[in-house]
């Protein structure tokens, strides 16, 4: 392909505490109706931010706007200090990786092939030498090495979800956007996914994760952002946000929060 190649701006090292994503006054409309309105949110390197809220609250929309998949109707999204529009698609891909909710593949590529696709942004850069290591590590971390040679299309839903996560990890971006990474997974693999997220945060990466299980959010997230009807109802340390009265109001269901008898951390339960 004929390309007028501008030099690709490769990302430098990141420091925990720096702002990775800055969302300001974000408004997104669908069919004339706002699905997100007036959202201000900072995500810093080294933290896991859980995005929670009822169905239709705008969690996935917010993630898509941060990712750059949809353009905001008002407000701005900045990644690594620059507005999304200031980066080329490839420069964005070097800085943020997105795990979608659904996984499709048109042709029966093997698991290994799929994970390797995560390395595409780095083709032709010095980081390309690390391709094999990054792929191997990502596959080991998500427990998918065993079916490296099996076609992705022949895997179960939970296996596909982990392979997709491995692809995202192999991309080695400093900001990770995970849309319901645990939806199709059993308990062991749910915990594994969040252990991976924690590890990423410990490396100084910023992790934004949409999750329905409020217990998982309470256990792993450094901060929780609670969305309700397209607005940010609360954002802060999980102990503050995951409060019984606030959750009861937002979810319109009687919810109680009790301390775990052994560890003392909050347990979020519907009152039944």
């Amino acid at each position: 392909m004929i390309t007028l190649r501008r030099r690709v701006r490769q990302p430098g090292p990141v420091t925990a505490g720096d702002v990775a994503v800055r969302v300001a006054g974000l408004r997104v409309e669908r069919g004339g109706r706002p699905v997100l309105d007036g959202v201000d949110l900072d995500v810093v390197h080294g933290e896991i931010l859980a995005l929670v809220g009822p169905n239709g609250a705008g969690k996935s929309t917010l993630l898509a706007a941060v990712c750059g998949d949809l353009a905001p109707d008002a407000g701005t999204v900045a990644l690594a200090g620059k507005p999304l529009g200031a980066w080329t698609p490839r420069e964005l891909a070097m800085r943020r990786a997105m795990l979608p909710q659904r996984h499709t593949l048109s042709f029966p590529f093997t698991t290994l092939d799929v994970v390797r696709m995560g390395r595409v942004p780095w083709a032709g850069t010095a980081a390309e030498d690390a391709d094999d290591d990054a792929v191997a590590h990502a596959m080991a971390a998500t427990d998918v090495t065993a079916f490296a040679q099996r076609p992705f299309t022949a895997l179960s839903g939970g296996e596909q979800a982990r392979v997709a996560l491995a692809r995202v990890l192999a991309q080695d971006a400093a900001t990770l956007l995970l849309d319901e990474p645990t939806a199709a997974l059993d308990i062991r693999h749910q915990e594994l996914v969040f252990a991976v997220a924690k590890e990423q945060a410990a490396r100084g990466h910023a992790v934004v994760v949409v999750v329905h299980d409020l217990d998982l959010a309470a256990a792993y997230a450094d901060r929780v952002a609670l969305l309700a009807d397209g607005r940010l109802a609360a954002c802060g340390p999980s102990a503050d946000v995951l409060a019984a009265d606030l959750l009861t109001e937002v979810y319109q269901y009687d919810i109680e929060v009790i301390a775990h008898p052994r560890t003392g951390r909050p347990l979020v339960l519907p009152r039944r």
Partner: protein
Amino acid sequence: MTATAAKPEQRGALGPVLLLAGLSAGLVVMAVVAASLGQVNIPPAQVVGSILHRIGLDIGPVPEAAQGDNALWLVRFPRVALAIVTGAALGCAGAVMQGVFGNPLAEPGVIGVSSGAAVGAAAVIVFGLTFAGNWTIVLAAFVAGLLTTLLVYVVSRANGRTEVVTLLLTGIAVNAVAGAALGLLMFASGNDGLRAITSWQLGSLAGATWPAVGAVAPCALAGVAAAFLCARRLDVLALGERAARQLGVDVERLRLVCVVVIALLTSAAVAFSGIIAFVGLVVPHLIRMAVGPGHRVLIPAATIGGALILVTADLVARTSIAYQELPLGVLTSLVGGPFFFWLLRRTRTRSGGWG
């Protein structure tokens, strides 16, 4: 992450190399065999000898048959060369098209791009246009093919994906319109035009000449080279447009380049050979079954494989019945049609209906 994670072995790294080497060897052998067989048989050794002498090496025997050398250089070699170029273009176009549509049933013939290009080429013949010399037919086929590809692409896509049903129905519609346009051109033309267009619709390499080869070969070569440069991005496109974009692929530009590549390859294939269906469908499919769907192997393998299949098919077409020539397009459809039927059923079983 641990530093000692075992690296998974790359599956059969030797497989693709063996396949490409095998296909290339097969193509060379088949080309020599195809040149040696015909109304006058010239032993393969003499065919090779004739080529060696032509390039200045006095090695091997020369054709003994009367006019043997002329038969080779004026009739058979251009025909084999055109078969190679046409087959390579069709195989490559099929692979690219399936990749960019994300659909294993896409093929220039099936979805009507070949007939669209043929309309352009036929119009030039009927109206006797020669504004671009030798290249006029190719150019007209390219423009018509490009328009048809764009039309099919725009019409058959919805929400970033191409449904099988929509794609095939679009193909039916495009083929119907193109068929009508060809019919009109036949109606408007004299006997010569009539013959020319008929042989087009059936597909034939009988009109092969060196100038024809010289006109389409650069187009096919450029198309194949551009397709190969898109290979890794086509792999990523299998994840879906959105995921590909998130991985830094400029999807809009990739699509545009691929549409132009498809039109270029299809017009190169159609310009002098007419509509030869199913090569672009069958060949990439067989290659995928052998070495998997990765485009960096698929595209070169489908290119060489397409050439091999078409050289073989043309040999069968002109030698199976003595003193008669079977239309090549009819032959490929006879074999490819049932294959397409099987593929349809399999796709349907896999996805549990057409959804």
